[in-house]
């Protein structure tokens, strides 16, 4: 894994993320205290009530007493361990960058076990909470369940990659895993910031806006860090492209149709629909533009591997609206959701799921390239002739 670049903005971004993680840790750890002991201090609630208003926080907290009360211990485990992960993540990233291998491996075991334990708490909460009782509704329940699956799978694949001696894949999966964990502090930030853009909305409404782009933002963040760290011009055995222009064109076409359908649906749902659409489209378009520009720049600079990775993720981003539209169908049919909620749930998970899929394809690409190189080397080193049998 290459060292991160030296530009000042990268250093500033890294410091900001580490500060956000470490700053969020005590907020996460104390978040459930008031539900265990009414009146107990909760740093997050205190901050939010001062940034927005006490009523904004109280309204939301009142709806949580029932669902959290049924799963208090799992939620406490989940939130406390989540806070621990906010500290462990930067330790892992910095120890990897500074090549402190033994520390990285030792803390890596702690990190993985903490992720699994924290996600068990989350799974118990989701299992005991009906989707309609989740904060801001069933769409958020679906988003949480998807983030849970994504987190568990990405940390598992990160472990596989480490055991299989694929440090580049290990880095990508663990960054994606941490990205999914970062949805927690990011959501709290949005709870505090979005009311300034959309005054008068309740925290539940703000939450519904935030989930429209939460997955895409964190997944893109993980990808951006991966690309920053990986400075290779080419990857071993990677020749040609798995995303030739016809494939990319089809992805654009399919995604375009799905996006038009999504836009028309939301525009038919009044001001609320328009807000949700803006919350989805603005980050989506920004991510799309960045990916296209990055892929082109990499291509022009002859950085073949970078171009390939950007294109794979670009294809995934284009197909995200297709997945969103398709996912709305089972949500509507098997969960009994109305069309609007089902589509919002599909939209909320689309980008994150496709980013996961794109990372999987990137992994296959790298693994295949390495396998190809290995077999060519094997053939060159071991000329083919028949061996004498053992006496």
């Amino acid at each position, binding site marked *: 894994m290459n060292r991160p670049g030296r530009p000042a903005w990268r250093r500033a971004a890294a410091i900001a993320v580490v500060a956000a993680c470490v700053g969020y840790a005590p907020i996460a750890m104390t978040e459930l205290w008031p539900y265990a002991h009414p009146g107990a201090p909760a740093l997050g609630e205190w901050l939010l009530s001062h940034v927005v208003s006490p009523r904004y926080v109280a309204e939301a907290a009142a709806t949580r007493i029932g669902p959290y009360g049924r799963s208090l211990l799992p939620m406490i485990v989940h939130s406390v361990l989540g806070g621990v992960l906010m500290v462990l993540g930067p330790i892992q990233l910095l120890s990897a960058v500074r090549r402190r291998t033994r520390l990285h491996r030792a803390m890596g075991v702690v990190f993985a076990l903490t992720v699994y334990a924290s996600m068990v708490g989350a799974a118990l909460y989701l299992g005991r909470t009906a989707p309609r009782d989740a904060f801001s509704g069933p769409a958020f329940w679906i988003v949480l369940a998807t983030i849970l699956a994504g987190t568990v799978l990405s940390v598992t694949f990160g472990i596989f990659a480490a055991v299989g001696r694929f440090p580049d894949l290990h880095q990508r999966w663990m960054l994606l895993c941490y990205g999914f964990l970062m949805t927690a502090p990011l959501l709290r930030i949005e709870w505090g910031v979005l009311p300034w853009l959309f005054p008068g909305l309740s925290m539940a409404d703000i939450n519904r806006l935030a989930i429209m782009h939460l997955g895409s933002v964190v997944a893109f963040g993980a990808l951006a860090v991966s690309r920053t760290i990986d400075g290779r011009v080419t990857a071993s055995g990677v020749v040609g492209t798995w995303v030739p222009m016809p494939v990319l064109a089809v992805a654009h076409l399919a995604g375009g149709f799905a996006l038009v359908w999504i836009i028309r649906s939301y525009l038919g749902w009044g001001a609320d629909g328009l807000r949700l659409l803006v919350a989805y489209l603005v980050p989506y378009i920004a991510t799309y533009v960045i990916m296209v520009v990055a892929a082109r720049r990499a291509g022009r600079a002859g950085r073949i591997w970078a171009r390939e990775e950007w294109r794979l993720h670009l294809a995934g981003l284009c197909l995200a609206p297709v997945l969103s539209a398709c996912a709305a169908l*089972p949500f509507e049919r*098997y969960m009994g959701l109305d069309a609007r909620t089902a589509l919002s749930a599909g939209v909320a998970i689309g980008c994150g799921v496709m980013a996961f899929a794109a990372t999987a394809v990137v992994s*296959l690409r790298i693994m295949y390239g390495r396998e190809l190189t290995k*077999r060519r080397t*094997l053939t060159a080193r*071991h000329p*083919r002739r*028949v*061996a004498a*049998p053992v006496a």
Partner: protein
Amino acid sequence: MADETTTGLSTDFGGRELTPGVAMLAATVAVISIVVGALLAAGGLTGHVFGAWKSPEALSSGLVGAAMLGVSPGLFAIGQAHVWEEARTLVYPLAVVILGLLAVSLLNAPKLQVAEGGGLLLVLFSLGWVAVLGVLAVCAVVCLFLQYLRPRVPLGDRIVPLPGWSKPLLAVLGSAWFGIGSGLLVIPQFWAGFVPWSVNRPDAQALGVWALALGVGILGALAEDDLSRVRPALLALPGVAIALSIVLGVRASEVGWTSGPGLSLIAMVGGLFAAGVIGRWYLSRRPMPQP
């Protein structure tokens, strides 16, 4: 990087070079098997029916999951093979499982969770199950086709032949698994009576696919008659046996152990374990060929 421990040989003994596609297919299936197998096995161990279709009991899906988990180490070992002949005794069963489970899922489509309705998680799992199997099936066919396009150097003499005393036993073991597997797959309504717990049609056929694959693997190893060429299979057999034993042990109350099928099951699972362990021990005692 290549080294002599990759195949254990400093010269090869003929055959076709293993393609990267087959190695990748095995590794990919191994990863998927660990994740999905763990889910199915956990459901089976805890008594919760978790699978692509509805089942009367959790044991069948748990055993399918256990088999997926148990075979994974062998699948990873395929990547260390140099030639196709060192991998085919496990790749053929792999193809049987992928294509067989896909066929069973499609033939029993009305019984899938997505068709019968149920919890969202199970519905999405059944959709993903069919989709992933479909993609893997296409990949398996393409990979095998491309593998057979590789030029073949005539095989040399066997390096570590099977001991003579083991061949009749392997023939019986392989035939038993192959036979019960074929029966469950083709005539599930009759042969399900020989399964010592309750199964429905898709359960019987899925178990039949796995039994058939085990039979193909064991009989294939018998035909190969060279322990140095069946290393991945020697790793998979005890893995599958141990995983099956754990699930059967935890859910022992659901199995009719004292019936004829129950006793046969014990012998067949025990045979898998013995074949793998004895084979690996025997292989470790034989010297490797010199150039």
